[in-house]
């Protein structure tokens, strides 16, 4: 059993506060990912859980035990570092066995546990090598092996895949996910890559400037982003955001385009931002009208095509536009730049945000 | 190509200019080197004033260079081995450097000039001082400075202890030293009654006692060592007993770094047996507050005599010089009474001519008068063997140093130690 409760935790460096009163509950066995841009405080929060940074105020509670003052080794937590931090002068075996040896475990136990972890991670043939003789991916796995061997209550990952190339990253993502399904240890994982977050997490915590913007399942965040920040952050390519107002069941963009809305659209006279994902826009005649667009750049990606377009006029006919939008088409058609096309979208897939506060409007 | 050409040109021009400049100064001036005595600037000024007088009189140009004491030995060693040499210089250890230099380098005999320029040598100079310029019947120059060592003691402590006047014999030394040694309640010595000598050269402390016991270090021809005798036993026993039996001498005094002057000034040392006359100059100059609390005296008498240690430096000519005649003229000029007095005053050293020592300058302080008297009993420390400086070197491993250390400090078997020293010394004499 290892539940974590982060209770109004703050962190200041000198007089400068970087984490502002963050609270979060993590259930036993959950795979939680902290995601956000550089400097949002996610790594700091992770390190506070690990015990590598002190907690300025607030509590971190693991299984009803407040661990603020405990040194790292007494927290029964294992961490995988971005740079792997393998001991360069020790073999893979000794790297993995190190913590057990320090704890004074009998040699037989150590060997058994190291062997088990090595089998899980496919490291058996590499046990006698030194880190310098391993590839990036192999080192990654050794770092994970070192963490697994300890059988801790909690795994912490600090951007472990950042140093790998794209292909390897994809492979390792699924390996980590598989590992978690197998071991079911509570995991907190930090990354700046939202694709990693979406694919691996049970729950995602989006952080920005030291605060939690939204915490929820990947689909929650995708379908119901709570703020402009989350909306723009989650989903790749990012959501199209158009500034304007709502008038008579239609959206009037600042540039003059008029787009018809559904009946349940929010009613407000304040400036709003309309959000629509590129994959919600369809080229051609399908669905209600969104507007006329001129295609500028066509990026075929094989299974999909990314189109950069300019909105010439809203579906309601009035001319306006000039806004740049992205369209993600899954239809196997060849598009040509500099052509004008009709674009449709289901108004039920529109998102609205208050232009000033950024908060979602229902 | 231009960079290369320009660089090469610069190098060539530069070095040519340097060589030209160098050789321009290597004119017909006589090269004359001396060490420094007392305040360096003052000394240089005095020497150059004397040289100016010489040039005025004879028209001969002389160039004076200072050789620092720290490198003096190395310098003359190099000279004696063929290194760059001056025409004439202020030198010492004639015997050693002559032997090293042989016929090629080093000090040059001036026999043919002796009668013409220095007809009255024996009358004008102290016999002891002349020993330092004569070697194997050859005459090498003029001794100009002496280093005579007398007895020095704290008159205030002596008065306190009820002692009137300095000790006159070895027995009195023992008696007085015991009265003057003071210990605290833990037995730590606060004041030592006696120290053998002031010089840093430890071996120079043994010589006076040995001589006073009637001994000589070697035969006159410098071939045979003569230290295995009664006199040596007497001297060593005296010194050893002072340290361990009467316990008036610091057992550490033979170690490196032993410096008696601050101890004497601070009242931690009462008497010194063989005191350099430079102490008189230094105490007058640096510790005027001690005026009246110390005095020098002639050496107390040993069983046979009261010989005092004396050393000398001399002006001589170097082999290979093209200006021998001019050098001899310079030396003759320097050896005149008034010039010798001037040198002695500037250097603070004792002069080698009785005439000079009788002057006003050498009688205006009580200790100077004592020094003058001590010159009567001077026994030169030079010995007619080139190996002498090696034998007498005051470093562990030196023959006489080891002898002193083994017998006096370690209290080893005296007969065995003396016999060994005699053997080693003879081997050294045989080397040359």
């Amino acid at each position, binding site marked *: 059993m290892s539940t974590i409760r982060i209770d109004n935790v703050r962190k200041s460096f000198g007089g400068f506060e970087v984490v502002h009163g963050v609270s979060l509950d993590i259930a036993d066995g959950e795979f939680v990912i902290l995601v956000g841009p550089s400097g949002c405080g996610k790594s700091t929060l992770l390190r506070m859980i690990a015990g590598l940074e002190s907690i300025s105020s607030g509590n971190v509670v693991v299984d009803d035990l407040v661990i603020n003052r405990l040194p790292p080794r007494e927290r029964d937590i294992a961490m995988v570092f971005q740079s792997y931090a393998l001991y360069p002068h020790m073999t893979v075996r000794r790297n993995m066995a190190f913590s057990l040896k320090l704890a004074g475990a009998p040699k037989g136990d150590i060997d058994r546990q190291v062997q088990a972890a090595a089998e899980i991670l496919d490291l058996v043939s590499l046990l006698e090598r030194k880190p310098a003789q391993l590839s990036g991916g192999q080192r990654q796995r050794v770092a994970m092996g070192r963490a697994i061997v300890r059988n801790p209550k909690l795994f912490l990952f600090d951007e472990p895949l950042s140093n790998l190339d794209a292909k390897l990253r994809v492979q390792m993502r699924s390996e980590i996910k598989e590992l978690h399904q197998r071991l079911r240890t509570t995991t907190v994982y930090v990354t700046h890559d939202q694709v990693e977050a979406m694919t691996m997490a049970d729950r995602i915590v989006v952080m920005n400037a030291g605060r939690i913007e939204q915490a929820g399942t990947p689909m929650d965040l995708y379908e119901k982003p709570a703020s402009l920040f989350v909306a723009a952050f989650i989903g790749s390519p990012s959501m199209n955001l158009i500034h304007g107002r709502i008038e008579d069941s239609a959206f009037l963009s600042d540039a003059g385009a008029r787009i018809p809305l559904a009946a349940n659209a929010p009613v407000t006279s304040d400036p709003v931002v309309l959000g629509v994902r590129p994959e919600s826009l369809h080229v051609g005649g399908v669905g209600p009208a969104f507007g006329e667009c001129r295609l500028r750049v066509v990026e075929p990606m094989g299974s999909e095509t990314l189109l950069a377009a300019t909105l010439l006029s809203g579906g309601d006919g009035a001319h306006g536009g000039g806004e740049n939008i992205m369209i993600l088409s899954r239809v196997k058609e060849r598009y040509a730049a500099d052509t004008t096309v009709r674009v449709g979208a289901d108004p039920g897939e529109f998102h609205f945000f208050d232009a000033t506060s950024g908060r979602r409007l229902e | 190509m231009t960079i290369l050409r320009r660089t090469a040109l610069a190098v060539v021009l530069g070095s040519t200019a340097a060589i030209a400049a160098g050789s321009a100064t290597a004119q017909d001036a006589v090269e004359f080197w001396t060490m420094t005595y007392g305040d360096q600037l003052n000394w240089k000024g005095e020497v150059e004033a004397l040289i100016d007088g010489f040039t005025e009189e004879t028209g001969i140009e002389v160039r004076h260079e200072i050789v620092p004491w720290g490198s003096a030995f190395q310098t003359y060693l190099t000279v004696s081995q063929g290194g760059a040499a001056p025409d004439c210089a202020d030198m010492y250890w004639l015997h050693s450097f002559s*032997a090293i230099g042989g016929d090629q380098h080093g000090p040059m005999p001036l026999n043919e000039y002796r009668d013409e320029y220095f007809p009255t040598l024996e009358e004008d100079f102290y016999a002891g001082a002349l020993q330092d310029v004569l070697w194997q019947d050859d005459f090498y120059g003029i001794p100009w400075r002496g280093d005579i060592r007398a007895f020095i003691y704290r008159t205030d402590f002596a008065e306190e202890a009820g002692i009137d006047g300095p000790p006159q014999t070895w027995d009195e030394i023992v008696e007085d030293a015991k009265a003057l040694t003071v210990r605290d309640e833990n037995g730590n010595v606060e004041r030592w009654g006696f120290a053998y000598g002031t010089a840093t050269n430890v071996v120079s402390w043994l010589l006076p006692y040995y001589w006073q016991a009637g001994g000589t270090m070697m035969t006159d021809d410098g071939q045979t060592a003569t230290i295995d005798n009664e006199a040596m036993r007497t001297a060593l026993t005296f010194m050893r007993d002072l340290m361990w039996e009467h316990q008036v001498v610091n057992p550490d005094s033979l170690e490196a*770094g032993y410096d008696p002057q601050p101890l004497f000034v601070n009242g931690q040392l009462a008497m010194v047996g063989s005191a350099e006359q430079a102490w008189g100059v230094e105490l007058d100059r640096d510790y005027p507050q001690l005026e009246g609390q110390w005095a020098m005296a002639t050496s107390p008498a040993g069983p046979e005599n009261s010989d005092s240690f004396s050393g000398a430096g001399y002006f001589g000519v170097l082999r290979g010089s093209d200006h021998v005649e001019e050098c001899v003229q310079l030396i003759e000029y320097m050896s005149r009474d008034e010039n010798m007095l001037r040198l002695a005053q500037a250097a603070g050293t004792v002069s080698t001519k009785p005439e000079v020592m009788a002057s006003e300058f050498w009688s205006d302080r009580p200790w100077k008068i004592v020094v003058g008297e001590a010159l009567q009993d001077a026994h030169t420390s030079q010995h007619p063997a080139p190996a002498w400086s090696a034998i007498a070197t005051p470093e562990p491993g030196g023959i006489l140093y080891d002898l002193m*250390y083994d017998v006096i400090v370690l209290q080893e078997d005296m007969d065995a130690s003396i016999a060994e020293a005699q053997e080693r010394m003879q081997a050294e004499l045989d080397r040359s």
Partner: protein
Amino acid sequence: MNEKNIFCYLMVAPALLVTALLGIYPMLASMVMSFQSYDLLAGQRDTIEWVGFENYRTILADDRFLQTISQTVIFTILAVGIVVSMGLFLAQVVNAKFRGRAVVRTLIFSPWFVPPVVASAIWMWLLQTERSPINAVLRDLGWTSGNIRFLTDPETWGPFSIPMMSVVAVRVWNGLPFVIIFLLAGLQSIPKSLYEAADMDGAGILQKFRHVTLPMLRPVLMVLLALLFMNGFGHFEMNYIMTQGGPRNLTNVLAVWSYQEGFAFFRFDNAAAASGIILAMTSVICAIYLRLQYKDDLR
């Protein structure tokens, strides 16, 4: 050879020349001398002749010389061992962040600005039995009743003696800053994440030192030890100035012995032979170092 090459050679030439003239030539000449009979006092009379290893045999038969060799080794091992241990500790102190760090750093580095000769003179005064302030303080504190004869006490415990300890202490004092700087550079190149990983693995301070710091410092330590040993075997100033090799030969080291042999006794052939032995000893260190380097490269 094009112009650029010639220019480069010209620029390097002066330094090479100086090294060759002042370093290599004297060394070679000295080695040659060690195989000749070169007695200055007999030099004019006898010709200088080749005697092969005779000089080496002569000095190796001298008990005092053998004692000097063993003392040189003991001195060096002691001095190097102490200075590196203290250096490792102090380097961490200097590296850490705490208030007053600048003051502590200045204090630690100040001995570096003192040339060995000056250091010897200062310490000679501080350690002079009767006038030593250290003795005075010790007596005031009541810890000792007599004076400690730092430089002159002839008592020995095995190969050790108080004068030896005193000279070693001064050598350590003078050399500590250099060692600290070296080790500091090494320490600062150790990635912080290694220490954090060790923290997570449950390592305490000593264990972190043993399993992270020391292994990561290995290359720096190897260079440092090689340098210190080679310098240590040839060390001259402090032993000569402070004690001249005494008392009773207890602080004599090869360089001092060699100097005395040459310049006090005029036996340059023996002095050169002693220097030859120093050369042999430092070559051994060099060879060991190179071998370890080679093995490291293979790894």
